[in-house]
């Protein structure tokens, strides 16, 4: 579709302009819904946690609070941008951008359905891993530029935490690559065709857990929110940020949550495939449901888990969190790499044929 558009545009315009316009359109089509999804994720979070905590959640702006995210955004935009006097202005401003930009950039390779991807590159998994790891620079720079002791502690914690959990995350992805035999995200989904027992979560169940737990840690969500540590280091790295600076950090955090959920759904839960494929009665009954609906349902479920954990768990202490990462998750992933190798050697199940 976009190729046709580009061809049609190049009739009137220079080629490079036609390509640029098509690309920008594609980016807008991907980023805009994500930003809206992020806005409503904040509302969903407050509503879900409100429900779990026997209260109502926001219900004043619009019917049942549905417009609350826009009220929040408006409030943040209208507020004064306060900068600590001794802070480094350039770094102070660049930090939130560095936190948000990679998260948005990572969406370039995420397939939303058959062929519905901005850039179908062969190293999709590597790209996501590489780009999303830049986020940590935003956090570190924010903590350092704020010139606040709390922010600095938060930044130190963030750098250690994110780097450690990225290893576990990377190894979990290695097992996926071993099963799928490809780094292209679309190919990975293709490998999982044929009902939910063909999805990779069965041979990689511990890796699903590891990946999701690392995802929690990567996004600084409870129980791994020591970087923000509300009760200890107040808000950690973004304690000095106000107005849209803070808003951008929030956007980045929630966009990252959505990204992690998409990655989990794509790599372990069969992407856009229906769970009822090849099941006699259910498959014809649900055949009319388009693929991206299934993908969104899976993502919604994973996002719900994020919120559920937040309502349930206390926070780890910093050293305990590191211990979990290095002494439990990373050894587990390494062991599982061998297990997958053995399974591969004996061509077990529908996954390794």
């Amino acid at each position: 579709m976009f190729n046709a558009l580009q061809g049609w545009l190049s009739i009137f315009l220079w080629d490079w302009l036609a390509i640029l316009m098509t690309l920008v359109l594609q980016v807008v089509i991907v980023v805009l819904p994500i930003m809206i999804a992020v806005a409503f994720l904040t509302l969903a979070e407050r509503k879900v946690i409100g429900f779990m905590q026997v209260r109502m959640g926001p219900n004043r702006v619009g019917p049942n609070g549905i417009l609350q995210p826009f009220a929040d955004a408006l409030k943040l935009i209208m507020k004064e941008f306060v900068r600590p006097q001794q802070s480094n202005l350039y770094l102070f401003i660049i930090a939130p951008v560095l936190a948000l930009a990679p998260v948005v950039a990572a969406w370039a390779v995420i397939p939303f359905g058959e062929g519905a991807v901005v850039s179908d590159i062969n190293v999709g998994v590597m790209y996501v891993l590489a780009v999303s790891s830049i986020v940590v620079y935003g956090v570190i720079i924010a903590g350092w530029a704020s010139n606040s002791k709390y922010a600095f502690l938060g930044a130190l914690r963030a750098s250690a935490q994110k780097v450690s959990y990225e290893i576990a995350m990377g190894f979990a992805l290695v097992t996926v690559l071993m099963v799928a035999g490809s780094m292209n995200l679309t190919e990975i989904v293709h490998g999982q065709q044929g009902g939910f027992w063909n999805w990779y979560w069965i041979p990689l169940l511990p890796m699903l857990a590891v990946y999701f737990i690392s995802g929690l840690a990567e996004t600084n969500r409870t129980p791994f929110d020591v970087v923000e540590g509300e009760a200890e280091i107040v808000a950690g790295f973004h304690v000095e940020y106000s107005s849209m600076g803070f808003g951008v950090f929030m956007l980045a955090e929630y966009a990252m949550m959505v990204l992690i959920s998409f990655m989990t759904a794509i790599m372990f839960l069969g992407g856009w495939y229906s769970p009822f494929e090849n099941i006699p009665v259910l498959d014809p009954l649900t055949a009319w449901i388009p693929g991206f609906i299934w993908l969104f349902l899976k993502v919604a479920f994973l996002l719900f888990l994020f919120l559920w954990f937040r309502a349930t768990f206390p926070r780890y202490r910093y050293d305990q969190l590191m211990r979990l990462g290095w002494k439990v998750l990373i050894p587990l992933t390494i062991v599982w790499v061998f297990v997958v190798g053995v399974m591969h050697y004996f061509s077990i199940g529908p996954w390794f044929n």
Partner: protein
Amino acid sequence: MPEIRNYTLNFGPQHPSAHGVLRLVLELDGETVVRSDPHIGLLHRGTEKLAEYKPYNQSIGYMDRLDYVSMMSNEHAYVMAIEKMLGLEVPERAQYIRVMFDEITRILNHLMWLGAHALDIGAMTVFLYAFREREDLMDCYEAVSGARMHATYYRPGGVYRDLPDTMAKYQSSKWHQGRDLDKLNETREGSLLDFIEAFTQRFPGYVDEYETLLTDNRIWKQRTVDIAIVSPERALQLGFTGPMLRGSGIAWDLRKKQPYEVYDKLDFDIPVGKTGDSYDRYLVRVAEMRESNKIIKQCVEWLKNNPGPVIAADHKVTPPSREDAKTNMEALIHHFKLFTEGFILPAGEAYSAVEHPKGEFGIYMVSDGANKPYRLKVRAPGFPHLAALDEMAKGHMIADVVTIIGTQDIVFGEIDR
């Protein structure tokens, strides 16, 4: 070679887990606490000095504001000191009411502590669950005194008035109507005692709910077990009282050791800890909530069957009834004298202590025979606890400092006075 210095962090007073206005100056080696230096005085209101300038009965309200999450327990120690000096006999019904409200206060305090402690450690749902129950107990406060927090309900010689026969009900609103509303008002149809009885029946279930979220939670255990261990000997030396002392394994409870009011007629146990760490103190306090619930149940039972006066009839100290004051000259004079210059305590001194939810809350009162105390000293349980913070926090991490502040159940109203 660069000089290596410790990181000094100013923790509070504007800090989400400073429990009010605690200011700590933390000296950190990495994230490990080398020294923590609590600074107090940011909530100092001069309660002791103010009391010296007021007739005895006008200072009761100040007592509420000392430890502002266990209001009636503070009043209790104060009015007991006055009664001790006057040798005033309190009617039995008033004693039961006081004990009942002391225990309601204990649950109020422990719920607040549980919620705040869990929130400090990151589990925020418990906080809101705890506040759901606090709401009901606050309504009990409101029903007897008209105020949800600063009740001024205990008076020298008894309590201000008898328990009401009706409970306030929720009104219909945009958010609660129809069956929703009926459910909210279900237990509010009868008297206050019926309401409290219904509460005691459902409360153990609620405590189970909190325990489900915390007691066996791995993260909760990792955060509290072996944090801030205080040995029994050290706890005694540091002057700990209440759950802080019992958490270390010493079964010291004024309700058992020197029973006041009617505690000797009631059946309850004293939970004690074993290792003296934060987890034990958590368990002790949760168990105390269940014990308090038991006491309230017994009090409700007794109060339902034994009507009677709730304040002593000595009108030199207690106000006469409104009707009397309108028709009886002597009652009018009593009323006038009492509310203008108060009453006079014989010269002497008295110390009265109650088992406050946080420990031993004592009032030491010296009278020179005037209508105001010559000196009033408040023994706040939180003060020695806070003084031990440095010792408890040494060698732990910043996140544990938050746990320790939580486990000490610090409220600045009483520490700064």
